């Protein structure tokens, strides 16, 4: 009973802390090389409601999914040149700058149980170093097997049991085949704008699915990747990907 009370008090104090933070302008974390807005803070704010306060690293220790830095996590839809963003070129330099901003749970029409209102973006969009397609490699975030290659999706099932999807790679650049065992950091394919006959921008859509067990029930869900990617990117910048 005492333990339960302590748990509730701790949860309340965490929530009060985040509530007080949310009343102020959220400033990005500044680093020497890299800065980012906290997980769940979507930019611009009209792009949706993120999982503010969810800093949990769902995939600890994964490698960053792009081979080289810099890389930029920000909105493709609401960024400059995006179809709901300010007018301009998708290649505008401002799209290729820090700070990063989370776009997991960004507004989408499809179902996503962990997002506000049960709808939203299942992963994050990552721009590579520059606005050039077929130049930068996406790599395996952990050891595993290529469980499927779709028309514009590569799925890696990691030894952890998590499933990672890489979307929009150039299909002619794929360095892997279905069923192949691959090692962490192994090249998968080049970042591009491929989505079959549908147009998209040059970026990697990266998402992670894992099964969560609660009591005797379980469910496979898309979990937030942003915190795990911040952690992975810091290691990449330090030369220990």
């Amino acid at each position, binding site marked *: 009973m005492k333990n339960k009370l302590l748990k509730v008090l701790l949860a309340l104090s965490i929530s009060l802390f985040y509530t007080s933070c949310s009343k102020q302008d959220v400033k990005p974390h500044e680093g020497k090389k890299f800065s980012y807005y906290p997980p769940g803070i979507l930019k611009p704010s009209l792009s949706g409601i993120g999982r503010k306060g969810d800093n949990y690293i769902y995939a600890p220790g994964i490698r960053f999914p792009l081979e080289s830095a810099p890389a930029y996590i920000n909105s493709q839809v609401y960024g400059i040149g995006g179809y709901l963003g300010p007018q301009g070129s998708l290649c505008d330099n401002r799209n290729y700058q820090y700070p990063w901003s989370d776009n997991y749970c960004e507004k989408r029409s499809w179902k996503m149980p962990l997002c506000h209102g049960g709808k939203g973006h299942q992963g994050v969009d990552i721009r590579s170093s520059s606005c050039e397609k077929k130049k930068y490699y996406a790599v395996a975030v952990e050891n595993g097997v290529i469980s499927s290659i779709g*028309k514009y999706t590569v799925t890696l099932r990691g030894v952890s049991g998590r499933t990672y999807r890489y*979307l929009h790679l150039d299909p002619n650049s794929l360095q892997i085949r279905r069923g192949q065992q691959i090692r962490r950091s192994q090249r998968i394919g080049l970042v591009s704008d491929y989505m079959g006959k549908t147009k998209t921008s040059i970026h990697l859509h990266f998402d992670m699915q894992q099964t969560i067990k609660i009591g005797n029930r379980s469910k496979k869900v898309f979990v937030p990747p942003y915190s795990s990617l911040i952690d992975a990117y810091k290691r990449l910048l330090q030369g220990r990907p």
Partner: protein
Amino acid sequence: MRILLISIFLFSFSHAQSGLLDVVWPKPNLKQQKPSIPYPSVLTQGIKNTALPIYIPSNYAYDKKMIVVAEQNFYAISFLLDGAIINISGDKTYQETISSENPEFSAITKNTAPVEYNKAEGIVTANFNKHNVNYILSIECDDPESDQRCTISMVSTLYSKLIMVGGKQ
């Protein structure tokens, strides 16, 4: 309120642990017709050591070009069509355990329909849990906006035609 829920959600992750789900094996379905000819060896060889019920759409059960990726606790089978790819996967692992007192996830799992259809990033999916195993059936098309195979209607038809073709008990 949402922040409070997320805080409780995170707090209940403090005892996170991974493991295997206990498969509740179905009784033999005597009504299911035995295959008149053996399934392709790519299927039977691929799944012989996989310890969960293997489902595939019956329409493609004899497709010799199917691609089978199977491990002890997981499988994924792809069927390559002209301009589209059907994939089905099953997984008996879990990566996190959270407390049943967690209100957010408790609500998500309690409200889960037997099968959930979705179309996201142009890919249509049917997510379902059978025998305590989580499965995903998906269709991905070259032209997801206009290809009639990349529709909820098509994936629900495929779901209704799933048959169990093996699994090591």
